[in-house]
Structures are given as C-alpha cells and as structure tokens.
C-alpha cells in the first residue's frame, strides 16, 4: 500500500505521542485535584498523618517532585513537625534554585517537554509559580522561628526579599503601565512620612490588586519583624515600608514602621512584642473543564470535533477579617497582608495564553492525524479494501485523545487562601488568646518568655486540633498544660504554634487599648 502524502507526519505524531506518554508514566492521567481534595479533607478533619500518608501514596516515585515537597512541607508544618517541614521545603527550594539558575542561562528554554504539545500539560515539569517560590522561603523562615533559630531564619528572610525583588523587577513595566493609566483616570499617589520614614502609596484598587497578585506583603512584614527582633532597623524599615505600600491604609502596618525607632530605643521593661500570623481557608485548586472544539482541517476545510480541556478556578468564600482578643479585654488590630486566592487566579490568567497556544498546537496536530486516518479509510474504501483495522485505529486515536486531553490542575493546594497579621505588646507570662474568624473561633493560652514572639494559627475546615511548637533545647515556649483551641460546630480546625525569641532587644511599654 502506497502511503498518502503526510502519512509520515502521522507516524511521527503517533510515535512521539506514544513515547511522551510512556515517558510521563501516570502523570498524563493523574488528577491532582482529586488527590489533593482527599488529602485536604483528611487534614481538615484533624488527621494530618492520614493526609501525609495519602500524599505519600500518590507520590511513590523515588525522585519526588517540587509539588510533593511543597505539600509535604505545609502538611508537616500543620502537624507541628517543623523539622520535617524544613527538610521538605529545603528540598523544594533546591529544585526552585536549580530552575532559576537554568532560566538565567537560557530564558527561552521550553519550560517543559515536547509531550505537552502532543499529550497534555500535565507531562510538563512543574516548576512552581512565583508566589509559591516566595512562600517556600517564607515558610522556611517561619519554621526556623518556630524552632527558635531566628538567626538562621534571617537567611531565609533575606532570600525571600531577594526573590521578591526579582519578581518586582520582572513586573515593573506592567506596574508602570497600569499606574500611568490609573493616574490618567484621576488616581492619586500619596507620600507621607511615618516618623521620618517615607511611604508612597496609590489610591487605586487596580494597581494595588495587580501588585498584590505578584508580591507578598506577609514576607516583607515578616522580614521587618525578624530584622527588628535581631536589632537591625535599617533592614526592618524597608520590610514594613514595602508591606504598607503593597497593602495601604492599614493602621497596624503603619504603626509598625512609625514606631520602629521608639521600640528599638526603649528599655526592656519585661514586655514581649508578639506577632500573630493567622492563616485561613485553603487556596482554590485548578479544575479541568472539558468540551468539544471544532477544528477545520484539510483542503476542503472539513470540521473535526476534538475534545479540549482548560483549567478553571472555582469561586471561594470572600475574606472575612479575623478578630484577635487577648485576656478577654484587649482587642488587637489586624491587617490583611496576603491574598493567595487572588495570586493563584492572577497566575492562571497569566498562564492562559501559553496554555491556549499549547492546546491549539496539540489539538491541531491531533485533528490532522484524525483527518489523515479518515482520508486513508476513504481511499481504501474506494479501492474496495478492508478498512476494519484503520477504523479501529481511528477510534483508538479519538478515544486516546479524549482520555489524554486533560487540563493541568497542579498547584500548591495546602496553602491558606488568606493570611492576616496582628501584633501586641504583652507582659511576659501566660495570656489567653481568642481568635475569631468567619470560619470559626480558636481560644488558647500562650506563655511568653522573651522580648519577641511569633504565634501562628491555621484555621482549616473540619475538627479542631492544636500543636505546640516546643522543642527541647530551643527557646520555644510550649503551650501551657490545659491550653486548648476550639472551633464552632462545623467550623474550621485550628493549628496553633507559639515560639518565643529570647534576644536582648529592648521593647516599649505595652498599649492596653489599641484604636
């Protein structure tokens, strides 16, 4: 039988597609959303060990990928296993660094494999989104703080804001364009001094939303807090300043910068400067949506229907600012510093042109292969030859396409949707903390020992659970006996960790009533 013109292309397509499928193993068919929905449900129900087991069972390969490391790092952190979390996140960070180096050497590299043009995007190597890369080092810093090692946390903090600076530089032109448009529409840039520190903000939601779609005010605020605790005001000030410029109009953030010099100059009168990091919700995952797409092929422009899939992101509950009450009578102001939900949506929006281009190439090549087979069948029929084999091949091609055409649902799913910070100066010793959110309420006791302390609380749908962050030999204060966290029925679970930082930095007098 003489092959039709273009039959070589068909064979090439089939060969490369088969090789890509074989090389990707199960990756091409894996539903990351289904896997992580189950994992998160277990964690939300208080069974973090079970969640880790499910994660491990879905990632049996010896060489773990970046996503596994990130999810494992967050789950272990949730469990209070800060050392284990640090091991996983260190592995994730090494992968991110390797890819960053590779990107610098060759900015035009494919970022994936040829398989994504033939099978689906799931076979691409997952390299992590910018916001995820920043969260890796941010959580590493928080782990170090939880372990009482604030000096080494400084290393992760420094790497975090260096990574943030790279992201800012990448987006500068985009920021400039949107800022100029906002100015033309009447948006005003304001300059103000907070105790000598200049701050520049703009009263335009679009500009601020764009910046917060890429940049992480939590990381900058945390940098400010750690540098302040280590007695380095020249590095603390830009941390607070950047957090204010990203999230303008929040008094709590402004007080942190305005009061920096006074706090550092004040004598140690036995108070503790406590930073509360409150994490709520779960970042929305990408979901694959399938439909049939008509594609014109051949000299007559014949329409061929091909199954196509694109990622979508479901709506989540709006942000509800938590309230923090200490010892039943002190209400502390909060500041919403991180909206990972918006960051994930912005990333999907930015990814869509690339996703659509790859889909167009993939679907076109599949349509052409299908068209060629149909033409060969028609030719054989005209010659009165048996077409059963070819027809079965065509059916296999169509079914194979429908099965493999799935959108890439991957993304760091165990991250919280929102992060809020609060800060208070309290006398050292035991205090009762009461955190209320739209999802539930947590009350617990903390024992503050040093001049600075970090308290983290995670609220996650399901039953409540608590994990103190005490480690032998570390300056961390375990939760006092009898401390507890509670959640309203059907509300979010709570993970709480408390760590003190015993560093000889003077703190100012406490404020019992905060505006």
């Amino acid at each position, binding site marked *: 039988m003489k092959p039709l013109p273009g039959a070589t292309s068909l064979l*090439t397509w089939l060969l490369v597609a088969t090789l890509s499928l074989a090389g990707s193993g199960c990756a091409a068919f894996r539903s990351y959303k289904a896997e992580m929905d189950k994992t998160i449900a277990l964690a939300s129900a208080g069974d973090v060990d079970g969640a880790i087991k499910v994660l491990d069972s879905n990632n049996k390969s010896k060489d773990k990928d970046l996503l596994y490391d990130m999810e494992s790092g967050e789950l272990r952190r949730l469990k209070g296993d800060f050392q284990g979390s640090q091991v996983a996140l260190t592995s994730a960070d090494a992968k991110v660094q390797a890819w960053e180096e590779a990107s610098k050497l*060759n900015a035009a*590299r494919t970022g994936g494999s040829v398989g994504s043009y033939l099978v689906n995007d799931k076979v691409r190597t997952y390299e992590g989104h910018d916001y995820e890369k920043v969260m890796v080092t941010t959580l590493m810093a928080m782990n170090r703080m939880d372990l009482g090692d604030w000096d080494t946390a400084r290393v992760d903090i420094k790497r975090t804001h260096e990574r943030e600076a790279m992201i800012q530089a990448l987006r500068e032109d985009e920021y*400039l364009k949107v800022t100029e448009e906002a100015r033309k529409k009447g948006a005003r840039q304001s300059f103000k001094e907070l105790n000598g520190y200049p701050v520049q903000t703009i009263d335009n939601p679009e500009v601020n939303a764009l910046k917060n779609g890429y940049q992480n005010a939590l990381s900058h605020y945390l940098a400010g807090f750690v540098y302040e605790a280590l007695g380095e*005001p*020249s590095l603390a000030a830009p941390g607070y300043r950047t957090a204010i410029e990203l999230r303008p109009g929040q008094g709590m953030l402004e007080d942190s910068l305005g009061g920096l010099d006074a706090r550092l100059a004040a004598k140690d009168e036995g108070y503790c400067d406590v930073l509360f990091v409150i994490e709520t919700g779960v970042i929305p995952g990408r979901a694959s949506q399938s439909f049939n797409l008509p594609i014109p092929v051949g000299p007559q422009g014949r329409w061929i229907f091909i199954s196509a899939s694109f990622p979508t992101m479901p709506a989540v509950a709006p942000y509800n600012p938590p309230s923090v009450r200490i010892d039943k009578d002190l209400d502390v102001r909060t500041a919403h510093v991180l909206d990972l939900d918006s960051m994930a949506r912005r990333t999907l929006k930015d990814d869509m042109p690339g996703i659509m281009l790859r889909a167009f190439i993939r679907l076109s090549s599949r349509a052409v292969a299908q068209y060629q087979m149909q033409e060969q069948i028609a030719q054989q029929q005209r010659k009165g030859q048996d077409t059963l084999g070819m027809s079965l091949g065509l059916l296999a091609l169509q079914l194979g396409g429908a099965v493999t055409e799935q959108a890439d649902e991957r993304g760091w799913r165990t991250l919280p949707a929102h992060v809020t910070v609060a800060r208070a100066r309290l006398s050292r010793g035991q205090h009762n903390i009461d955190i209320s959110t739209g999802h539930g309420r947590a009350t617990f006791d903390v024992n503050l020992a040093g001049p600075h302390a970090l308290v983290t609380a995670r609220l996650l749908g399901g039953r409540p659970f608590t994990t103190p962050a005490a480690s032998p030999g570390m300056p961390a204060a375990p939760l006092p006996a009898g401390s507890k966290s509670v959640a309203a029925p059907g509300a979010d679970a709570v993970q709480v960790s408390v760590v003190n930082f015993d560093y000889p930095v003077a703190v100012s007098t406490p404020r019992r009533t905060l505006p």
Partner: protein
Amino acid sequence: MTSTSFALFRLPSVLVLATALALTACGGPKTKYGDAGSVETVTNQFGSTDLQMLAEQMSQSMLSEAPVISSGNLPIVTVQEVKNKTSEYIDTRAITNRMRATLQKSRKVRFATDQAEMQKQIDEIQRQQSEYYDQNKSTEVGKMVGAGFRVSGEITSIVKEDKNIKDVYYQLFLSMTNIQTGIEEWSDTKEIRKTTEK
C-alpha cells in the same frame, strides 16, 4: 492540499526540531573569582559598588574635613544607626563598618562600643566576673570609656521611571556631633545616580 493544511501536517516535525534545538542551547553554569572592587552593574538596585563608593568617599571626607580628626587628637567616636529611608533592603551597618575599618587604619580615630555591640560587651564583662576566672586578671566593671563624638545619618533614595528609563538617586548623609556640647563638628552628603535604559 493547501499551504495551510500542509503546514499543519508538518507541525509535529517542526515542534520536535524546535524542542531539540532549545534543549541543546543549554550550557552548564560557570563560576569564577572576580575582583571584589570591580564595578557591578547587574541591576540598578543598591549594590557592592555603591556601598564601596559611599563608604570610601565618606571616610576620606571625614579624615580630611572633620577638624577633630585632622587635628590629630585621636578622638573616640561611636557609630549610631544610619537610618534607611529607601524602599530597598540596604544594610547600612555594612556601610558604616567599612568606614570604620578605613578610619581605624588611618590611626586618627578610635571607636567606642556602639549600641549594637553593647550587649555583647556587657555579656563578656559579666562572664569574666564568674568564679571560673582569675579575678585579678579579669576585666573590671565600670572601666569602659565613653565616646566623645557620635556619628549618625541617613540614606535616602528617589526613584523615577518611565517606559524607557529608570533613574535611581541615592544620597547618604552623615554627621559627627560632639556628645558633650551637642555641636555638630562635621557633616557631608555623598550622592549616586544610576540610570538604566530599558
């Protein structure tokens, strides 16, 4: 067959070739030692060259322009925090540490323990008071020498940019004040302008 559909037929082969080319373009990272004093212009953010320039220029200005130093009286100075009023993470202590090293090498200035080092100094004195040390040879409490002068200042920046150019201007201001009298004995500003064409 039309040219469009012909192109579609050839697409997979072109893709394979393009991917292969892209992958072969990769090279391994190369690391080498360089001159720490050479000019660094990787980005327009505050960098090593800026730090070196500001510290060297300020040190020379202080040595030649500050009367209390040029008179050869060997003044005792303490360095206070230089306030960072920029939006960048600039470790101003790295600037003052470099200045301190240059000034000390000139043998015209001595430095008293500054605020940042004070706790370490106290810790060491207290450690020597313990029973593990020969008290006849231990450092006595109350013998530290206070500075006669304090150096303080601030670094500011102005950033302007449009779609073609980004201009960054840094200004470091330092002053030396007589602690007893409050009289400012010396002050100077040093500036850096960096322009990047996009």
